[in-house]
């Protein structure tokens, strides 16, 4: 059947940064199937259009939420939504983070900028079962301290190591300055026994995945989340192609072993 959006009411709206908002939703009528961390929805701003957005919270742990950065007509419209507004959502679409592959192993989760949002439900899922994993590490990078999302929540997490770094500090910043990969030196993990999850801008994904592998993490144990233009999310519009991969079907979460040769080709 045609994928038609399902009405959802905005039940809370939390500004995260100057241009980023987290919206929590409840279904007006029938609910969507349960999302898994890493999956995405097509979210509709009335009269503007639809965009793919990964879930920053899933029904199973805290209800459906999207964290949206205002960068275009549709995301502007979504960021301006008020509590009580109705937004159309369809999904779940795409692949999810394979957290079960990290069971019994060290976990390294690396987020760059808004890439933190799709990783958040994964982190919550791991923290809900700390005994299932060895050491959980969360590494977060952003351009400036003002671009950091959910700082208080991050500070409350009981991980083996949580590191936060920014590219450009601000006057009150006392934390790390520099790229997120430099935090790997302080993270607590045995590379051969580690599963890693990475999301952020493509150059950051590339640099992080390469560094993890240099440390000795097996390259089929590094999962990354890719981004491409998407119009349908059902594998029919052709926009999200990355070589042989239709990102909406075989992604957004893929093994680095699969993604690396594709991302190495310019303008693929």
């Amino acid at each position, binding site marked *: 059947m045609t994928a038609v959006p399902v009405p959802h009411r905005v039940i809370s709206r939390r500004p995260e940064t100057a241009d980023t908002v987290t919206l929590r939703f409840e279904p007006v009528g029938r609910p969507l199937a349960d999302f898994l961390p890493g999956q995405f929805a097509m979210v509709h701003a009335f009269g503007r259009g639809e965009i793919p957005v990964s879930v920053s919270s899933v029904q199973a742990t805290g209800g459906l939420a999207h964290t949206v950065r205002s960068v275009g007509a549709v995301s502007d419209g979504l960021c301006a939504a008020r509590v009580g507004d109705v937004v159309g959502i369809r999904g779940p679409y795409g692949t999810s983070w394979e957290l079960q592959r990290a069971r019994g192993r060290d976990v390294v989760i690396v987020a760059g900028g808004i890439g933190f949002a799709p990783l958040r439900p994964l982190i919550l899922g791991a923290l809900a079962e700390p005994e299932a994993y060895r050491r959980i590490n969360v590494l977060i990078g952003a351009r400036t301290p003002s671009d950091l999302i959910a700082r208080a929540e991050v500070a409350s997490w009981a991980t083996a190591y949580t590191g936060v770094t920014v590219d450009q500090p601000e006057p009150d910043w006392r934390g790390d300055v520099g790229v997120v990969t430099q935090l790997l030196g302080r993270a607590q993990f045995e590379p051969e026994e580690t599963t890693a999850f990475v999301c952020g801008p493509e150059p950051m994904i590339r640099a992080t995945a390469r560094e993890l592998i240099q440390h000795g993490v097996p390259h089929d144990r590094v999962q990354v989340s890719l981004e491409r233009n998407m119009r349908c999310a059902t594998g029919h519009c052709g926009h999200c*192609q990355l070589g042989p991969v239709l990102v909406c079907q075989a992604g957004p979460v893929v093994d680095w072993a699969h993604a690396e040769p594709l991302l190495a080709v310019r303008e693929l």
Partner: protein
Amino acid sequence: MTATAAPAVLDRKGLDALVAALVAQGRTVVGPTVRDGAVVLAELTSADALPFGWGVELEAGRYRLVRREDGAAFAHSAGPQSWKNFLHPPRERLWSADRKPDGEVVFGAEEPADPSYAFLGVRPCDLRAIAIQDRVLTGGRFEDSGYGRRRSGALLIAAECTEPGATCFCVSTGGGPAADPGYDLALTEVVDEHGHRFLVRVGSEEGARLLEQVPHRAADPVTEDTARASVEGARDRMGRSLPPVDLHTLMGSSLDADRWNDVAERCLTCGNCTMVCPTCFCTTTEEVTDLTGDHTERWQRWDSCFDLDFSYLHGGPVRRSARSRYRQWLTHKLSTWHDQFGTSGCVGCGRCIAWCPVGIDITEEVAALKAESETETD
């Protein structure tokens, strides 16, 4: 089973009766007809509208109608359109939404009463193209419901190819001038001293029922032999061919080829090849609102991987250069299509060659890529 019914023969009157029977069933009959200096696909109300006595002359960047002495109706190669214009139309409303005074939003799926199509004169290359679009749009985890609805109601009457054009290369894509299964009826046109007639093979129960409704006779050996010989003859008269190599592998290993720069110098990135290609399926979406702002509609329209916006991500397009966009089209068509849908995306109809305004020839480009790959491995 009647689908294996013995071949029959229709004469010109039988063809008239066939179209009349389809119209009487309430079907929208679409077939080739001459308009605006080309053989186009349009609704037919009688067989008289078929392009009797017209052929075409094709070359890279060139398409001309020519008169035929024999009065044949289906002796023309692929025209500027394909059946995707009807099954996967250039514009289609997907759904609409209304915002009520209390702020509630109601979404409504589009469920139009699509015409019940009968396609008359589907060339074997286009029959394969329809099978490919079936896989793409209805064979995956999700189905394009509009396509599925129109497709399941469509009756396909193939016309086997007896007159390939200079831009044709179906045989080298694994197809042929003979029709693969998938048709309801397959016609093979025969014009000789015994008259103008059509050998008919039945491919489905529905085709058999349709044939029952029109005057026909059992096929005679002369008609069968002549039909078979002219289709076989067409196999040897293809104007072009793709190199007989594993194209999936060749394209996959040619991403850094210099030839892409060469073709990028000529390619206008106009997207004509993607519009005329019978398998190109890519679409984009548009949001259209009325003046109240409380009614909005989601429209789908054809899109092209040659368009800069096609790969736009926040910050700019992924594929900026003409080189990368031509490479995307050709590599998808011949290589990554296999990875995504388990088949090639090319049927060798030659439309992209004829309708390219600068005459870029897919077979020439692939041959050049092959030559380049061989130089490198030497």
